[in-house]
């Protein structure tokens, strides 16, 4: 009970910071629009490649942009704790008996909530652009869940790295190091059967690809329940592992003081 309350309070703290910075709020909301329009225009001709299934690139692209954006926005969640460490706020928090898991879970919930807002925007915009959600409302909700889970995993990793490294530069380096390779080693922008064999092999172990496959399978096609359930299970397990890692990172940080 206390753990839940504390998680909620940490979540609220993140939301308040977000709402008080209009520029940040605006960028977060505009980003999905730019991505969908930009990638949509750039990769439109991909449907002409022999072997590409389907004729609508927007159908193909929407889950890809949803997943990419989840990775890109959740990756920065840990920045808040780096600021806290340097300002002295972290010391004050860690001197209290607050459950350390709430510090991670609250910010992860905030990161996941941002991902959900951005995903809903993409879903609506893609609809305007002519996307077909063959999975129906349930399928779309599943895609949002997938994005939130992936966002939660990356937000936890971000928190863990932030608290262990304590430097903005290190976190920026770590995030940029993994973001693009993980995206390109997935079916986010390109059909897997058209990618080189080694990418197809690597994609099997790539959480971003699990999310792309699950999101596409849930929302854009007639939902393949077995496929989606398997990937969602993997993502949920990954999220849990990342959350344990981040929670432990706080204890490790404290021991190192």
């Amino acid at each position, binding site marked *: 009970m206390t753990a839940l*309350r504390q998680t909620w309070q940490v979540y609220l703290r993140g939301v308040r910071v977000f709402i008080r910075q209009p520029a940040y709020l605006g960028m977060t909301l505009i980003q999905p629009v730019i991505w969908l329009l930009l990638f949509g225009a750039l990769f439109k001709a991909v449907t002409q490649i022999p072997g590409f299934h389907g004729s609508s690139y927007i159908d193909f692209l929407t889950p890809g942009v949803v997943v990419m954006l989840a990775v890109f926005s959740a990756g920065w969640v840990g920045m808040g704790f780096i600021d806290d460490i340097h300002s002295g706020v972290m010391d004050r928090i860690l001197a209290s008996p607050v459950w350390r898991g709430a510090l991670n879970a609250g910010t992860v919930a905030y990161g996941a909530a941002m991902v959900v807002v951005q995903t809903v925007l993409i879903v609506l915009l893609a609809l305007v652009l002519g996307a077909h959600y063959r999975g129906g409302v349930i399928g779309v909700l599943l895609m949002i869940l997938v994005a939130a889970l992936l966002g939660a995993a990356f937000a936890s990793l971000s928190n863990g790295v932030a608290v262990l490294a304590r430097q903005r530069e290190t976190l920026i380096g770590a995030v940029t190091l993994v973001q693009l390779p993980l995206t390109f080693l997935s079916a986010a922008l390109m059909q897997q059967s058209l990618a080189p064999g080694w990418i197809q092999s690597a994609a099997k172990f790539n959480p971003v690809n699990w999310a792309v496959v699950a999101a596409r399978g849930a929302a854009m096609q007639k939902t393949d329940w077995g496929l989606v359930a398997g990937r969602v299970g993997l993502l949920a397990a990954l999220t849990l592992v990342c959350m344990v890692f981040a929670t432990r990172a706080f204890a490790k940080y404290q021991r190192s003081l």
Partner: protein
Amino acid sequence: MTPAIEAEDLRKTYPPAVTALDGVSVAVEAGTIFGLLGPNGVGKSTTVRVLSTMTRPDSGRAQVGGIDVLADPVGVRRTIGVVGQKHGADPEATGRENLVLQGEFYGLTGRELKQRVAQSLERFGLTEAAGRQVRTYSGGMQRRLEIAMGLLHRPQVLFLDEPTTGLDPEARVQMWREIERLAAEEQMTILLTTHYLEEADRLASMLAIIDRGKVVARGTPNELKSELHGDAIQVELADPGDSRASAALRGVTGLGEVKLDGRVIRARAQNGGAAIPAVLAALDAQGVTAMAVTLARPSLDDVYLRHAGRAFHQTDDTQEEAA
């Protein structure tokens, strides 16, 4: 009676080889203000960090409010309030939001939390500013908010790590009054670290002087000062390190504890005023030129000088905080 804070032989070394604590022992009686005094980087903050469960010692044991800091850190955290050296309040949140979040971290909820937040805002004169973001607060207001946050859950023991560093003189005096009130009206045990001798002298009923990770002296401020027997005479010399000066002063009867420290030579005398002509005559006889002579009643600065073997202000700027 068990002391509210008790530490025995705390040792801690930071890699590669910075010894922050080299066997620190302190005992603080419940309901008193205890001052931990020393320049930066001698182990004061590390001692507080160990006692407030922010870090673990390499060896030694400590209990706060009867709870062992190593065996039950969470129990200790519930019992204590900590106001650190750095700013602990979230600058982006308002004063009220900071207090509410802090209360939730200590398990306070609902009506009780609301009441306590309102009371502490009132008490620390922050009611009007409660809805403003903390980054718009003055230094004194921030410090008051941080103390309000440290007290919200009504701790038995409060740790104040350099509570007035960075405050202007007016805010400092205000803070001193607040700290005195806490100890007097609420029977709170307060462990205060400071590098201001004046602050320790005014607030603390017991003091420990810490130097290079060790407690080098302890007692009430008066005990420590009266140990010094007599007035301090300080002569500023024209040439630094003139050893003839030491020889000259050692020959003066009634003068003790002659110490040469650069171009300043210090000594003690039961009646300092009466000793000054003899001091000047002795220096003159040796051909040493005196530039200025000052006479002072014993101060904590002298206590520090005597125990740590160097003047307080000299160490202040040259040593980095180890923790």
